[in-house]
């Protein structure tokens, strides 16, 4: 019996388990998934929790609902990955051997990396919205907040879902409008980037929206520490920003097992061939999604497109053929902009987000780099698509390669 081992049962690991189980003979291939947690979170939904649009039950389901029959699932922490021995050791010392390994252990937030962040004000006046706990704590804080300085800060690059902090401030603007206290809330977006986003045309569109919504932007701010007494964030070059409530995107790093196994870069992301998605170190190890160091967004859409490529290349590797599928870094992000509207951007390694229609050229129904009601419906419907189609590894009408059709240069 040959063995495929998948580390991580999140979006990437679950998609791969589904794709591989339907493609490979059960008598020939054993497929095992290891994950330490039993709950699958619909992470794009965390953003809506602070504003009472979703609650906890809207974003959680048991992971086991999404693994197909015939896949072995082990809920355990992972102690060590030993690529040279083709084996993985679990927390209890049990050793799992593999012929092929897929690492999909994701990225996590590490507030402890920033001095002063996880101290007196943590979950009292400082919150994150990348964990269910943080999102719910912020929801409870906002319920009684009367207004003041709301500061959003991104601590380090890269971070998961690069548009989420923008969506957060857009939704905050709409939320406090609807409560009738927008004039009492000052919203400031503090980022280490030179502007609202990294890609020029999207930055232009998003900067326009930020200005329209009266949201201040402080660019090129690289967070050194948080002062809990004076309630301010301080950058390495001495800039200071005062807050009454701080929403932070903490430092993102790969799973600690990657560091323990000596497989990661300085942020524990695994050096990965950006086209084949194979580990640069081991021929029989592939890396999917956030756990890798490929230069594109850390986001579910990238995992989904990348999974198609990884699947093809893994099948080639199994049959001893060269890896011909090439990932283009395709990312596709809905951007909630508040008041029932949204925008969409679609881009890859080489092409920045452009205006146009998506996915059907000239028809849409979605408008790229535009702010429309229809784009918002796309985001709403996507949660259903995620649970029912995407995680199960089924086909969506959008291929892995980005298409230029319908885009305006």
């Amino acid at each position, binding site marked *: 019996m040959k063995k495929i081992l998948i580390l991580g049962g999140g979006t990437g690991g679950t998609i791969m388990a589904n794709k591989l189980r339907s493609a490979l003979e059960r008598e020939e291939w054993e497929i095992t998934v290891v994950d330490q947690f039993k709950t699958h979170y619909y992470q794009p939904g965390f953003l809506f929790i602070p504003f009472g649009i979703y609650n906890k039950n809207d974003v959680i389901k048991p992971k086991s609902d999404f693994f197909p029959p015939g896949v072995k699932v082990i809920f355990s922490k992972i102690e060590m990955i030993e690529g040279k021995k083709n084996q993985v050791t679990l927390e209890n010392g049990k050793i799992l051997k593999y012929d092929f390994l897929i690492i999909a252990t994701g990225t996590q937030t590490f507030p402890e990396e920033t001095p002063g962040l996880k101290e007196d004000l943590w979950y009292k006046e400082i919150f994150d919205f990348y964990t269910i706990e943080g999102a719910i704590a912020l929801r409870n804080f906002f319920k009684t907040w009367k207004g003041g300085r709301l500061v959003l800060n991104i601590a*380090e*690059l*890269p971070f998961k879902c*690069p548009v989420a902090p923008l969506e957060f401030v857009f939704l905050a603007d709409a939320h406090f409008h609807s409560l009738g206290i927008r004039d009492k809330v000052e919203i400031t977006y503090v980022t*280490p*980037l030179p502007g609202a*986003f*990294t*890609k020029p045309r999207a930055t232009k569109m998003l900067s326009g929206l930020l200005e329209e919504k009266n949201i201040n932007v402080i660019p*090129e701010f*690289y967070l*050194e520490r948080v002062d809990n007494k004076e309630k301010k964030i301080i950058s*390495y*070059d001495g800039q200071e920003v005062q807050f009454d409530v701080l929403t932070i995107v903490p430092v993102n790093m790969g799973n600690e097992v990657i560091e323990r196994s000596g497989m990661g*870069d*300085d*942020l524990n992301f695994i050096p990965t061939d950006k086209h084949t998605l194979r580990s640069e170190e081991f021929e029989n190890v592939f890396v999917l999604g956030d756990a890798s*160091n490929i*230069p*594109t*967004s850390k986001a579910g859409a990238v995992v989904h497109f990348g999974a198609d490529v990884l699947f093809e290349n893994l099948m080639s590797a199994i049959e001893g053929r060269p890896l011909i599928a090439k990932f283009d870094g395709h*990312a596709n992000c809905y951007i909630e902009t508040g008041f029932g509207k949204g925008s969409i951007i679609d881009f890859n390694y080489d092409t920045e987000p452009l205006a146009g229609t998506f996915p059907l050229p000239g028809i849409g129904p979605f408008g790229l780099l535009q702010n429309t009601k229809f784009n918002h419906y796309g985001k709403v419907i996507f949660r259903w698509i995620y649970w029912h189609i995407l995680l199960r590894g089924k086909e969506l009408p959008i291929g892995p390669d980005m298409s230029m059709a319908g885009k305006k240069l």
Partner: protein
Amino acid sequence: MATQNIAGVNIDVNDEGYLNDPSQWTKEVAIEIAKEEGIELTDKHFEVLEFLRDENEKSSTLTIRKVGKSGIVDIKGLYDLFPGGPLKKSSRIAGIPKPSSCV
């Protein structure tokens, strides 16, 4: 693309003044570019520049954090050496491409 005469040599630079070809870099070129940025280079500066050039050679993604963990300077020290946009300025002076922050 444009050609600029730096320290008596013709160097290919892009619109933002970054060298197109890291192999055209010399210490003299670095000193000239640093002057434009208002920085006088010390041995410590050159240690950082060499580190950046080595990492660029290995085609690894450069971040301020990575330089901070290099053992040459901490992040605060890097800001002191190259005030105001340390990675962008040091990359330009090191003759390597402008660092691209991933999205």
